[in-house]
């Protein structure tokens, strides 16, 4: 069994009418593992389902509502902390979708707060957040140096009073990545949501989500990211998207994301061999919610680092991580 069961239920929620108990148990375990249970609950809506399922979906919707409320509060707090700096604070990912009421935000699991700020303002932002009660999560000199030298964000910070994390990005991909998206253009063209908070323009939202899914990650939990992309593509002008993606050096990734989103959630698409390998990795989830094909997962872990780092640096990073007992899951 693969996560195709979950993908079908999201694409065509009417098909859940045919599920038996085993099918429901599998669907629910997969949706939880992929952090898509809230989205699934909203897609199924008021369609008739067994009583036990109704209770689970109701819980999932309530959790998603609370997630959104808390995410918006974190954004509000960050805006307040950074208000004096006169900077645009650009919300990224789930918080942006929730704040702007986008379909990609409906039922979405939202973890940390992700914001994008100009690179030149990083130090000021860091200080303002610390003044407002955020602190560093870990004091590991290697990780800290790694983040500062090579990553696209500050090391993660957590708010001491609220126990919520913030990731401050200054661009959308690591500095070691071969693609170099134009972060300044993303910030310049961002759209206001409220007086203080902004989000990326529609084309940049897709570019960022595609970069995050295909150029950055090891694809773990990628079905959720691909669902975001599917929703974000709705109503977008393909020509404008293509121009924007090329400008960020993400043309290939955005085109692949479009094909995968159409193939899994939409009307279908012609897939390349590489697309099929990526799709197999995205769907590698069984009816108990377990990730399958561990070797494929490991290959993607190495690949995701290879995409971001020159090989010698990768070897150094993996050695340092492995000596500390860190393994890909």
């Amino acid at each position, binding site marked *: 069994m693969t996560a195709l069961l979950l993908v079908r239920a999201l694409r065509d929620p009417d098909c859940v009418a045919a599920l038996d108990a085993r099918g429901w148990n599998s669907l629910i375990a997969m949706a939880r593992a992929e952090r898509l249970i809230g989205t699934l609950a909203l897609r199924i809506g008021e369609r008739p389902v067994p009583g036990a399922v109704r209770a689970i979906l109701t819980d999932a919707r309530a959790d998603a509502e*609370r997630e959104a*409320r*808390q995410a*918006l*509060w974190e954004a*509000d*707090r960050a805006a*307040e902390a950074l208000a004096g700096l006169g900077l645009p604070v650009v919300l990224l990912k789930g918080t942006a979708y929730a704040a702007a009421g986008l379909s990609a935000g409906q039922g979405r699991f939202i973890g940390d707060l992700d914001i994008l700020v100009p690179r030149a303002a990083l130090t000021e932002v860091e200080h303002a957040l610390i003044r*407002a*009660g955020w602190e560093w999560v870990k004091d590991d000199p290697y990780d800290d140096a790694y983040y500062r030298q090579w990553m696209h964000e500050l090391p993660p910070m957590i708010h001491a*009073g*609220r126990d919520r994390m913030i990731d401050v990005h200054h661009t959308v991909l690591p500095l070691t990545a071969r693609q170099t998206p134009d972060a300044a253009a993303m910030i310049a063209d961002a759209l206001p949501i409220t007086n203080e908070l902004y989000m990326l323009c529609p084309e940049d939202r897709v570019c960022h989500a595609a970069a995050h899914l295909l150029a950055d990650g090891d694809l773990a939990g990628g079905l959720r990211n691909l669902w975001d992309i599917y929703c974000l593509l709705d109503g977008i002008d393909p020509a404008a998207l293509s121009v924007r993606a090329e400008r960020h050096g993400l043309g290939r990734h955005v085109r692949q994301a479009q094909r995968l989103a159409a193939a899994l959630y939409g009307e279908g698409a012609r897939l390349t061999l590489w697309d099929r390998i990526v799709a197999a990795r995205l769907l590698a989830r069984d009816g108990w919610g377990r990730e399958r094909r561990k070797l494929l997962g490991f290959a993607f872990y190495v690949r995701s680092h290879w995409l971001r780092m020159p090989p010698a640096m990768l070897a150094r990073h993996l050695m340092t991580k492995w000596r500390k007992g860190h393994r890909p899951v």
Partner: protein
Amino acid sequence: MTVHRRYCQDSPDAIASCALDDMVLLYHRSSGQTHMVISPVPEILATLDDGAAWTAGEVLGQLARLYDLGAAEEALPQVEAHLVELTALGLVRIA
């Protein structure tokens, strides 16, 4: 000194409160946080309930009509400090 800074409540139904025998609980709806407070914090928040923007001095003036707060020169910095703390928690905003 921030004597002239004005404060207002977060929004009209931002808080659900519950008085226990030895303190007051405040449930802040937008953050989902619960705060345990004692006098004069509930009274300060009640003053802001009318939705207007108040200075610390005005809040103190209102409270002094209802409660015995002692000398104004000692009470004012305390009220101001509470307002600053409530602002940091997001229960009160600077108008």
